[in-house]
């Protein structure tokens, strides 16, 4: 498809603002841009059609099943968008006086109250722009806590399980902490003996996702946080997987001191093709003073309009609807898992939480088709593939998270297709590389994209 720049026609333009009513201001030459800007010259209609065509080439939740493990791609209620575009929310300046924005104050206070209740935290900050920035703030809180206690120099290690999201170790390392990896047991739980070995006076704390990325809730969770606390460390909860336990088990009760929530996963604010999200950070009283020193991780007040959407969700569902959603996410995941078990190798043996991990290790060895091939074949059935090759500790992984908003009919259809694709590939593994067949492009050459990066369009000369 042509790019905006390739559709340009010199002189084509729409008028948006009036002619100057005041004298033109002439800058001295040394300030002026002599080069012309190469932006496209298009009519509104050209632009409208361009983006309509791009929309057809974008797969959203509105188009089909989106079981991306760890991403919680639940339905994003449409009325949230309408609320978030109310002028009273959109047209207010971040540096207006607090007295002039009682509505914005309500959004933050009410969201804080409701989210603290769900998580068992004392305070909730909406500064961070995303989950990764939430982690950043959380680790800064922990760092500040030890610094205030005169242990800033000595507590330089952070414990992170091998199943963690990549952002956890990346965040800790950015904050100058040394990452120490804690092993998982075969069941996917944290290895308590290993943890005990590692928990000493050099640790700043622990970063943990629970349920973890293998989709299992760690039954030793209270013991884990106790071990860390006894060693003088603090416990950070990565809320990426809070969805299955909302109003069922609270991170605060598990013993966590601070947490982040991905409002764009758990609280249904849309992903927007990669952002903006929002990473609310919850903390217990003991960290409040530290927060006052390190809160500023981005300009102004965080992603206000994202918080507006999350509050719409919280108000509509209520505590009961929130709990029902959590339960259904688990029920739906287990329902799918149960029916796929006779065909696929699935890591979790008992009940999973909101997601489960298929491994195609055997198939890739015995038949020569890989997780990637299975995923790509699903695309031809109008569904987004599961998360691939994550968690990294499971070879040839496909991670499936159906979410509570999908219908039973969709789950049944997905099960049928997953099995069909599996059988098709087993029968004809040579065809594996041909999928997907129905998309605007076939598999792209990612190797040459990285080797000879072409990261922008340039006018041909």
């Amino acid at each position, binding site marked *: 498809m042509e790019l905006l720049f390739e559709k340009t026609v010199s002189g084509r333009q729409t*008028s948006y603002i009036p002619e100057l009513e005041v004298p033109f201001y002439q800058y001295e030459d040394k300030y002026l841009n002599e080069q012309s800007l190469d932006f496209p*010259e298009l009519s509104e209609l050209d632009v409208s059609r361009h983006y309509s065509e791009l929309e057809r080439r974008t797969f959203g939740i509105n188009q089909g099943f989106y079981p991306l493990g760890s991403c919680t791609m*639940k*339905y994003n209620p449409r009325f949230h968008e309408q*609320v978030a575009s109310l002028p009273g929310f959109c047209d207010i300046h971040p540096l207006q006086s607090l007295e002039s924005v009682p509505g914005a104050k309500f959004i933050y206070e009410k969201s804080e109250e409701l989210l603290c209740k769900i998580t068992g935290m004392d305070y909730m900050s909406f500064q961070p722009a995303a989950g*990764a920035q939430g982690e950043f703030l959380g680790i800064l809180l922990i760092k500040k806590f030890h610094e205030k206690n005169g242990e800033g120099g000595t507590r330089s290690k952070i414990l992170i399980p091998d199943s963690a999201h990549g952002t956890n170790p990346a965040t800790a390392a950015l904050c100058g902490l040394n990452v120490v990896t804690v092993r998982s047991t075969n069941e996917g739980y944290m290895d308590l003996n290993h943890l005990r070995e590692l928990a000493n006076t050099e640790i700043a704390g622990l970063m943990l996702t629970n349920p973890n990325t293998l989709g299992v809730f760690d039954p030793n969770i209270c013991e884990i946080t106790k071990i860390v606390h006894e060693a003088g460390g603090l416990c950070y909860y990565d809320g990426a997987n809070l969805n299955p336990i909302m109003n069922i088990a609270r991170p605060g009760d598990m013993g966590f001191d601070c947490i982040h929530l991905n409002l764009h996963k758990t609280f249904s604010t849309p992903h927007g093709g990669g952002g903006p999200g929002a990473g609310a950070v919850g903390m217990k009283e003991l960290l409040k003073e530290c927060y006052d020193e390190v809160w500023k991780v981005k300009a102004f007040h*965080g992603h206000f309009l994202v918080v507006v959407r999350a509050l719409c969700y919280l108000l509509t*569902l209520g505590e009961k*609807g929130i709990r029902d959603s959590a339960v259904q996410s688990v029920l739906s995941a287990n329902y799918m898992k149960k029916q796929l078990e006779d065909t696929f190798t699935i890591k979790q043996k008992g009940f999973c939480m909101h997601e489960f991990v298929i491994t195609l290790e055997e198939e890739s060895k015995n038949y020569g088709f890989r997780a990637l091939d299975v995923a790509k074949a699903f695309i031809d059935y109008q569904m987004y593939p599961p998360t691939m090759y994550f968690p990294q500790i499971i070879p040839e992984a496909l991670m499936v998270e159906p979410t509570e908003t999908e219908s039973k009919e969709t789950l049944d259809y997905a099960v049928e297709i997953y099995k069909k694709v599996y059988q098709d590939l087993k029968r004809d593994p040579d065809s594996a590389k041909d999928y997907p067949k129905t998309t605007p492009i076939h598999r792209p050459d990612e190797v040459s994209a990285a080797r000879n990066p072409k990261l922008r369009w340039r006018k041909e000369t």
Partner: protein
Amino acid sequence: MGNYLGVTKEQQEEMKHVLNIQSTDDLYRDIPDSIFQKEGTDLKEGLSQLEVIKIMKQKAATNTIYASCYRGAGAYRHFIPPIVDLIAQKESFVTSYTPYQPEISQGILQIIFEFQTLICMLTGMDVSNASVYDGATAAAEAIAMCVEKQKKHVLISETINPEVKMVLKNYEFAFGIELEFIPEKNGKTDLHALPSLITENTACIYVESPNFFGILEDLDTYSTLVKEKGIKSILGVNPMSLGILKSPSVYGIDIVVGEGQPLGIPLSYGGPYLGFMATKQELVRKLPGRIVGETIDHDGKRAFVLTLQAREQHIRREKASSNICSNQALCALRASVYLSVVGPNGFRQVSNSCAANAHYLAEEMFKIHGFYRGYPGEFFHEFVSVSQIPSNDIIAKLEEHHILAPLPLSENKLLWCVTEVNQKEEMDFVLSLLKEVSEDGIAI
């Protein structure tokens, strides 16, 4: 009330039957009893959509929307062509995930590729990423690109936006870098003081132009100094100024960053906004965040993919150059649509209009008795006034007429911002109010 569950009560029973469980509590066997919250009667029900919309509309209506606005300082009210809103509301764009599966994500990938190109055109730089959280985090990430183990000293101008300053101070604590400020003199970075501040451990320098006071910095001098010392230069820009002002690339800047909010993104009480980052080709592998590249598919057809992922956290974990995992795709889309519909001439017109209106207001204001320019030096669309009348009196006067007053910097200093939306009649009204205040002030 609502819950958006896709499964009926009856179907839930069927599912439970398939799983051979009596109660959904059985699914949670791993959760210790001591922390398990059983399904209780005290759980509050939610509200209907009708009720929630009503509440939210009521709350939104309590926020003051000013009829006109003279406050900027990092967030700017501009005209947003309605088509920007409509395209950004397309359901697939709103609800899709980060484009991990290129075959069904060509739309979002192409949008980001076009955004990267537009940012390169705007700044004159070679490459751009898919965007970061906001202008402040873009500045912080740019600094992180330059810092090395042995070079952790970073110089920052005192004239940068205080919001950015606060974020950078926080990154200083996080990264263990050493920030030092270049003093301000007459509203500008004191470049005479700069050479003596540079040490052999200095990694980079960050300056903004227009700076917080609206003043254009001496970028020629700045870039010459920095080049002589072999230090990386980072420049923060207001994208709207680049419709008329010299492209940062002309000065040989290494990394250009900024807040993209002026490009079609509403004020939204501060977010979500759009951080952009552009750099030279040789620094591309240090650039954080998502980057989209062009390639071909197996049939030779043009295709776009996320690329250079070896830099990123999901591959490199603790060795990654940044922990960034998302970008502001939907805000980047808004900026792209904005720049596409206004085009090069429209963009220049908006830029000119901001400058002309701001200079008109300033010129007329400083004819009023008791009002003086805060700082000499050329500016874009923000400037500082000093007056004998207390800032609060001026603010109160404007507030009476539903005008969002300039940002008070001190008891007698105000930071004004004027854009294309402030029309002459409106500015003349403000000037008449200032005259009244001035006369009242003198009468006392």
